[in-house]
């Protein structure tokens, strides 16, 4: 706040305000008065002029010429004119004059003025035709009465039918009433203004007085403050002086400290505000150089640390908290100096960082010591890391809390050592096999109690789920903090353990082998002998171990044994050598020997292993097999011969049976046709029997040939689209005469059925066989019912009779060649036992199935189902497919 210069002047302000107000009000009053007066006068003038003009126009006819040529003197005329003008005079306010052109008054309502003459210039103007107004004094024209202010209007006066004005009519009236009117109008306004002024001033004065007082008060306070300020300023000056003194003292101190102190603006890091002179000793650059070279700091920071230091400074400034960092600087002479930089960030009142203060401590020696220490630690670590086992120090507690654990633990458990230290992620107890944990605890506690080292084997769990076998050796020691700790090493012996297991497994396999398995050293002495060897050779292990292997060779075979051994020592194996050896009891046995060299880990031959398999039994089995093979070949040869003979027989039957049958039938035909003369009824009957039997014989030959074809795999079908229903109808009609003869009801029922691919002749033969069988084996009065239908993609034929039935034990022989049921034979029902075999062959060739259902004495049903093959295969395919 500035100091007020108007202090102590408030009364003047009030006066000035009052003066200005009064002035303004007076001016306003005057203005109003002027305006009102002017307005009133103008109005009065206008009224007067218009009255005069109107009067002039009215009078023009009533005035006489004489009234304007000579002053009116005759009393009559005066009275007449008085009467004429009386209405215009408005009770004396208006006065009238008539002027002659030369300025002589010819008439006035004030008779005394008649005859007076005035040189009035205005008259000429009026006479020229204009109306003139003027204000003057009554006595201006020589009156003797009260000299009052009047206003006049002059108008030209024309008599009737005259063009030129003959004289002038003057109306004039007293200005007094107008003035009175004005005064009356203005007086209340002036009063109001005065009153307003008084009120305004009266109300404003206390306020102004109050303000004045307040201003005065403030002014006083400011003056007081100014004094205070002055005093403080003086104190500050003294303090600054003291401070400077202190600063120079402290600076001297700071500049004596064995470290570099600096101040930097936050936006210009690198000692931009101050750096203590020790920097010269540290880096070889003087403080002035630092302040003059803004980027010097970043130039001396070691290039390897530059990026890190920049980042650290940036984040440190951003957080505003003090921070400390270590980095390298390169001195002017090239020395590398390690410094510790402790930085304090100074913020302004708003919290924005403005300055960084700090000091650099030379830690080059400390660093060197640290490096030396870490190198030594590293050496120790390397040593531990190279130990082929886990080195540890732990507490003796439930978790085996680890204080130290070498990295080898990662190999053993799949978890890093850091996981176990102080049980950070997991406890060491968690990787011990649960079954072994109690034993481990027990053993360790016992060893600690007896103050002896311990060795224990247990299992650990690997991250991948596998189990490792380890040996742990350890001993309790007294730790630095007085607590008893456990120091020790854990070795992974899984491989050794596995190898031992493997060895035991192999040994048991060797032991359980039927073969003789033995080992001999390079000098040929037996060193190992299994129970198989005991069995094969008759010697026990005790008897033979240590003896030369040559004892097994029979006399005359020793050389073979020697040469075998020479091969072995040369590293060559011998497999399946079949030779002869001698048992303990002297018996010779056939053996198959396999010799392999035994090598040590370096590959050198240290002996031989031998496996001897007793092949005496195999030898005799082989001989037997060879004999059987020969026998079989012989039998095959004979079978082939038989086959050939059968073919020949079939050809023979074909020709030699058919040819005579042809003659028999031919000549019978001739005789029956009575070519050789008329026949008696008896002759005809007998010849009928001959013909029927010839026909049976022919049928038998046909059946045999057919079966021979089937056997030879030469049955072929002539495939075509076949209507099974039609075939069944033909077969039924063929069998009908026989059925009627035997008093058997024969029926046929057919359902809707598609054409099937089949051999018409063979299928007809099939149905003939089944239907004639049914008729043959059904006693008189019975029935044979034939049904043909389609069912689930198959064509089904059923032939059901009410005949004698087939016992179940005979049913499975039914389709064999030449099989006849016991009853058929008993009852001498004619037949060869070939019909059903042929039927089955036909069904098989069509890839169908034939089944029989029967109960002894309860009738028989044959059921055939054939696949419905819509597509007709080509002939070749059909032959190939159906060949049996």
């Amino acid at each position, binding site marked *: 706040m500035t100091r007020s210069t108007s202090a102590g002047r408030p009364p003047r302000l009030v006066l000035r305000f009052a003066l200005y107000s009064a002035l303004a009000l007076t001016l306003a009053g005057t203005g109003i008065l002027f305006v009102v007066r002017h307005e009133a006068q103008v109005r009065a003038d206008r009224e007067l002029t218009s009255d005069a003009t109107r009067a002039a126009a009215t009078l023009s006819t009533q005035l006489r010429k004489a009234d304007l040529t000579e002053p009116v003197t005759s009393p009559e005329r005066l009275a007449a004119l008085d009467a004429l003008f009386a209405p215009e005079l408005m009770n004396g306010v208006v006065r009238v004059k008539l002027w002659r052109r030369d300025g002589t008054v010819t008439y006035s309502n004030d008779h005394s003025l008649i005859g007076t003459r005035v040189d009035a210039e205005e008259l000429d103007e009026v006479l020229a035709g204009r109306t003139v107004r003027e204000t003057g004094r009554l006595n201006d024209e020589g009156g003797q009465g009260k000299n009052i202010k009047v206003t006049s209007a002059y108008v030209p006066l024309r008599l009737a039918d005259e063009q030129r004005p003959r004289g002038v009519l003057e109306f004039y009236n007293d200005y007094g009433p107008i003035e009175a009117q004005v005064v009356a109008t203005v007086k209340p306004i002036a009063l109001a203004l005065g009153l307003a002024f008084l009120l305004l001033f009266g109300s404003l004065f206390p306020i102004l007085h109050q303000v004045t007082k307040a201003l005065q008060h403030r002014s006083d306070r400011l003056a007081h403050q100014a004094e205070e300020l002055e005093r403080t300023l003086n104190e500050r000056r003294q303090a600054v002086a003291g401070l400077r003194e202190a600063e120079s003292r402290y600076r001297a101190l700071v500049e004596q400290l064995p470290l570099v102190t600096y101040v930097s603006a936050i936006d210009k890091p690198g000692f931009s505000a101050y750096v203590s002179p020790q920097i010269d000793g540290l880096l070889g650059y003087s403080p002035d150089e630092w302040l003059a070279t803004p980027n010097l700091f970043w130039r001396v920071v070691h290039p390897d640390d530059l990026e890190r230091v920049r980042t650290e400074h940036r984040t440190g400034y951003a957080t505003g908290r003090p921070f400390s960092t270590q980095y390298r600087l390169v001195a002017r002479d090239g020395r590398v100096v390690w410094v510790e930089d402790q930085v304090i960030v100074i913020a302004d009142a708003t919290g924005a960082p403005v300055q960084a203060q700090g000091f650099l401590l030379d830690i080059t020696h400390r660093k060197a010591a640290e490096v030396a220490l870490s190198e030594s630690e590293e050496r120790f670590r390397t040593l531990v890391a190279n130990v082929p086992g886990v080195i540890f120090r732990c507490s003796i507690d439930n978790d085996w809390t680890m204080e130290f654990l070498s990295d080898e633990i990662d190999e053993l458990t799949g978890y890093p050592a850091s996981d176990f230290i102080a049980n950070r992620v997991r406890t060491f107890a968690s990787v011990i096999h649960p079954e072994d944990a109690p034993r481990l605890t027990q053993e360790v506690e016992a060893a600690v109690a007896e103050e002896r080292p311990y060795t224990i084997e247990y299992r650990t769990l690997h991250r991948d789920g596998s189990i490792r076998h380890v040996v742990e050796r350890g001993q309790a020691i007294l730790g630095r903090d007085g607590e008893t700790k456990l120091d020790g090493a854990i070795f992974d012996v899984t491989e050794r353990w596995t190898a031992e297991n493997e060895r035991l497994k192999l040994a048991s396999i060797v032991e359980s082998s039927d073969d003789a398995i033995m080992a001999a050293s390079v000098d040929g002495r037996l060193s190992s002998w299994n129970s198989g060897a005991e069995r094969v050779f008759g010697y026990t292990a005790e008897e033979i171990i240590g003896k030369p292997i040559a004892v097994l060779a029979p006399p005359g075979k020793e050389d073979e044994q020697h040469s075998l051994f020479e091969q072995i020592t040369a590293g060559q194996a011998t497999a399946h050598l079949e030779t002869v050896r001698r048992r303990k009891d002297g018996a010779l046995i056939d053996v198959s020997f396999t010799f392999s060299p035994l090598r040590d880990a370096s590959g050198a031959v240290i002996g031989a292993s031998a496996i001897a398999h007793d092949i005496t039994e195999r030898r005799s089995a082989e001989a037997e097999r060879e004999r059987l093979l020969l026998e079989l070949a012989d039998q095959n040869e004979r079978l082939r011969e038989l086959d050939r003979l059968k073919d020949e027989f079939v*050809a023979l039957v*074909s*020709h030699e049976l*058919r*040819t*005579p*049958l*042809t*003659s028999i*039938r*031919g*000549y019978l*035909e*001739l005789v029956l046709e009575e*070519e050789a003369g008329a026949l008696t009824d008896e002759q005809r009957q007998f010849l009928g029997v001959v013909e029927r039997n010839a026909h049976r014989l*022919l049928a038998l030959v046909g059946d045999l*040939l057919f079966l021979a*074809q089937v056997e030879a795999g*030469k049955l*072929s079908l002539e495939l075509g689209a076949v209507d099974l229903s039609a075939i069944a109808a033909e077969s039924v009609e063929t069998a009908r005469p026989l059925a009627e003869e035997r008093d058997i009801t024969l029926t046929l029922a057919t359902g809707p059925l598609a054409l099937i691919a089949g051999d018409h002749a063979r299928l007809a033969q099939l149905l003939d066989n089944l239907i004639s069988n049914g008729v043959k084996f059904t006693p008189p009065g019975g029935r044979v019912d034939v049904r043909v239908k389609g069912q689930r993609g198959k064509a089904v034929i059923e032939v059901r009779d009410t005949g004698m039935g087939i016992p179940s034990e005979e049913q499975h022989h039914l389709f064999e060649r030449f099989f006849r049921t016991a009853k058929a034979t008993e009852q001498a029902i004619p037949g060869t036992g070939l019909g059903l075999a042929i039927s089955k062959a036909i069904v098989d060739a069509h890839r169908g199935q034939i089944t029989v259902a029967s109960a002894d004495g309860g009738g028989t049903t044959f059921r055939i189902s054939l696949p419905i093959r819509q597509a007709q295969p080509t002939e070749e395919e059909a032959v190939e497919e159906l060949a049996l």
Partner: protein
Amino acid sequence: MTRNGQPLILIADDDPDILALVSFRLERAGYEVVQARNGEEAVQVALARRPDLAVIDVMMPRVDGYEATRQLRQQEETSRMPIILLTARVQEEDIARGFDAGADDYVRKPFSPQELGSRVQAALGR
């Protein structure tokens, strides 16, 4: 064709009964018949007599029916003569062999003499 206008038919079969039976049947049917006892003879007779048709048994000694047919087909004179084979063989391959040799038809044994008659008629009437 014979002098009296009857067709001449050669019958060849080694079985005299069948030979007589067939001859009798054909003669009664109005044909003239010459006989042969084997294949060799059948070829000689056919070349000598120029029959209108030959019925030849397949299974004959010396020269069988197939061979006789083949020889007759090679001769100019008998190359177009209809030949019916008589066969007791029923295998398809036997029938095929007959056609390969040049036969026009075949009749299986045992046959009805009446059936043979109608086959002969058919072969001549072609």
